């Protein structure tokens, strides 16, 4: 290993294999010089993303009014940057939806200008 490269081991979160992927990169140019330990191509792509801009699917709940249950569960349709999650949670907490809601229903469209929707993942019937 030369002096201006850094080695990191990242655990892939894409599937339960939890591959421990080791990679070497140049912290100045942000160039990855080697990747080892990924069982699939997805893991290789993931680790490149994870190093500089980690992305996560946000799963949470949203308040339901007039429903059999007080909450429906939700998630983003795509992974969003980890750094945007806090602000997205604030937006979700401030929102509420009228029952009934169904799985797949969009409750927030491109929130905060992000490239994703927030959809219902557990339906709630009207009371």
């Amino acid at each position, binding site marked *: 290993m030369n002096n201006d490269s850094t080695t990191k081991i990242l655990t*892939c979160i894409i599937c339960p294999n939890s591959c421990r992927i080791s990679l070497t990169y140049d912290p100045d140019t942000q160039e990855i010089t080697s990747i080892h330990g990924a069982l699939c191509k997805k893991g290789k792509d993931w680790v490149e993303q994870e190093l500089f801009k980690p992305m996560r699917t946000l799963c949470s709940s949203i308040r339901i009014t007039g429903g059999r249950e007080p909450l429906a569960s939700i998630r983003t349709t795509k992974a969003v940057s980890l750094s945007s999650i806090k602000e997205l949670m604030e937006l979700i907490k401030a929102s509420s939806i009228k029952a009934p809601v169904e799985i797949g229903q969009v409750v927030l469209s491109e929130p905060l200008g992000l490239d994703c929707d927030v959809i219902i993942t*557990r339906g709630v019937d009207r009371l």
Partner: protein
Amino acid sequence: MNEKINVSILIIGAGPAGTAAALGAKEAGEDSILIIDRDTRAGGILNQCIHDGFGLMRYKRALSGPEYAQLDIDSCHKKNIPILTDTYVHTIIKGDDHFTIKAIATGRLYSIKAKAVILAMGCRERTAGAISLPGSRPAGIYTAGTAQRLLNMQNTLVGRSCVIVGSGDIGLIMARRMTLEGAKVQAVTELQSYPGGLDRNIRQCLDDFDIPLYLETGIVSVHGNDRVCGITIAPLRSDRTLDMKNSQYITCDTILLSVGLIPENELSRSLDIAIDPITQGPIVTGDLMTSCPGVFACGNVLQVHDIVDLVSEEAKRAGRTAVSFVSGAYADTKELFSIYAGEKIRYCVPQVITPSSTTTLSLRVTEPITDATISITNDATLIKKRRYSFTQPSEMIQIEISVPENLVGSLEVNCE
């Protein structure tokens, strides 16, 4: 009001195991199926598992728990498989050629006659009492799954500042969930030198939010009279005693326990079904039949799974073999051979097998192992060998084997 029902196959539990077992039975040609569940909603524990990552094997995409559950519930509806919710099975009586199942619902008693029963009741959590948690018992101590249900189903955040004891997956998932909802998760503690949950959950639930994980750390005492006010933790010395010189007090109002799951087998025990002391689930054959002919088990009531996709697969198999039992195609004179968990193997399911069959073995290792080789042998004959670059107790390993015709003695599974 008393209601009498006659079915071919009765399934107890409408979680991922129960619904998949029903679909497996239906696909095998059985039309007379009934699923009973004590909850208001079918779907079992998945209803409160709102995080994603379910279905990666089966559907090649990451679904949340409720979405995964709903797919099989919808299939049951489409195939006219009835699901009786809000109904609690309290007794199973074995008759000569059938079972009588007694169940109770609001204002109603059921007496159900079935030719076969599939157990799919899932598991429940170990509690503060089960681990002899030291210190007082104030309000504010919850199992992680209870806190998850309160938060995700009933909109109740159980505390503002919490310590999670045990690093099982539900604890890790709750560390993230509580953080997202505005609580401060002070730490996760674990007695072992390795986490109880999957590595991907350490990364996305703890590391993402800078929540510290203290491995090889025990609980000295829980503090508080009316409500939890703190917890004292200490690292373990090599002799597994608490190193009090390095103990630390953490102020918190809530403690979540994520210290393991126990298959829920009260009904199975009432039938005198043999239980494996390690898995705490029924001892089964490769066909997933328990020691009581006609009673099958699948999902977390059989063995605690780490991945729901594997639950569904196992349950479908139980559904299919239950059909072969009720149709009379099942030979109960099959000779049974034991399969033993040997070196570095914690358990192996099934525990008994029949010659000339194909069987999926589920097993876990006793400790984290790099470059593991798992071999299945009969006498000195090698039946199958599999290599793993890394494996640990939190991962269930499945190996499909063809059991030879001429078995000598028992089978043994070893890891090196």
